């Protein structure tokens, strides 16, 4: 009897803690410089919203971009005919990236695109290769689709991504 009363008391305590945590989380989020919208948006929805700040484009759709294997990517590094883009978030890019790669992150696409626009516009006829973490990473395909919808045509995805590059023991840049 006493044990079940203790358990009921503890469960009530946990519920109070959960409610207090939710309220604390909402307040902290409200005070943030960039609060999280209370209704979750998928990465595709967020990228579509970012794209609409750049161009009056049709609704964002995932397109099939060509892929490039590791051996071919190695051969184009430093040839000045190919732009390598890293679609991972900036902290990951900062920790290390493929030599010469520029950071065009999926999550901060519009801001990064504006920053890189002079370089990208000047290289519209060049080949663009995008990578992200690797494996099932979806970000590089999303960024590739966004660039295709912005008028870039020579866009390819390196599906091996950062993990494929580092596992092959290839040089990295920080």
């Amino acid at each position: 009897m006493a044990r079940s009363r203790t358990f009921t008391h503890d469960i009530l305590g946990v519920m109070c803690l959960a409610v207090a945590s939710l309220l604390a989380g909402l307040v902290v989020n409200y005070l943030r410089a960039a609060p999280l919208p209370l209704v979750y948006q998928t990465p595709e929805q967020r990228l579509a919203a970012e794209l609409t700040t750049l161009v009056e484009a049709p609704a964002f759709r995932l397109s099939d971009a060509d892929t490039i294997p590791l051996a071919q990517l190695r051969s184009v590094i430093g040839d000045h005919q190919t732009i390598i883009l890293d679609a991972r978030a900036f902290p990951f890019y900062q920790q290390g990236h493929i030599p010469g790669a520029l950071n065009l992150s999926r999550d901060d696409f519009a801001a990064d695109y504006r920053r890189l626009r002079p370089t990208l516009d000047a290289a519209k006829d060049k080949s663009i290769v995008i990578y992200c973490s690797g494996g099932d990473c979806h970000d590089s395909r999303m960024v590739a689709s966004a660039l295709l919808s912005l008028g870039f045509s020579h866009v390819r995805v390196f599906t091996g991504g950062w993990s494929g590059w580092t596992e092959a023991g290839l040089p990295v840049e920080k």
Partner: protein
Amino acid sequence: MTGRSTRYLEWMLRLVIGGVFIYAGWAKRNEGIEFADSVASFRILPGAVIVPFVLSIVPFEIGAGAMVLTGWQKRVGALGLLIMASMYCVALALALARGITVNCGCFGTGAVGANPWIDLGRDLLLAAGCAVLYRITSRSVAPKPAL
């Protein structure tokens, strides 16, 4: 188990579990959207619940971890963390059973490529630790049987 060894075990569990959950909460404090993506990847919670859940996890883990560590309302803290660790185990097991690739995001989303089996094993250990801790701390308040 003697009273002294039970006390040592309780102290050890409080230090480890409290410390682990405070660290886990702290590691996620600036990863709102990334952690929301991790939670969404499990395909368990409806979209309307994901952000409120994500926002409450960090204060909950830090708060419950601090309760366990400091000893103030330690039973409540231990039970809260037991529920949370069990919830993570169920979510990871469901994701593995359905063949969904997930990033646990338990200690921040920086651990890209983390193995979900290792995550599940770690969460099972944590849940077991929380259960033992809750049992020990509950026993200390239970009335002694009459002689």
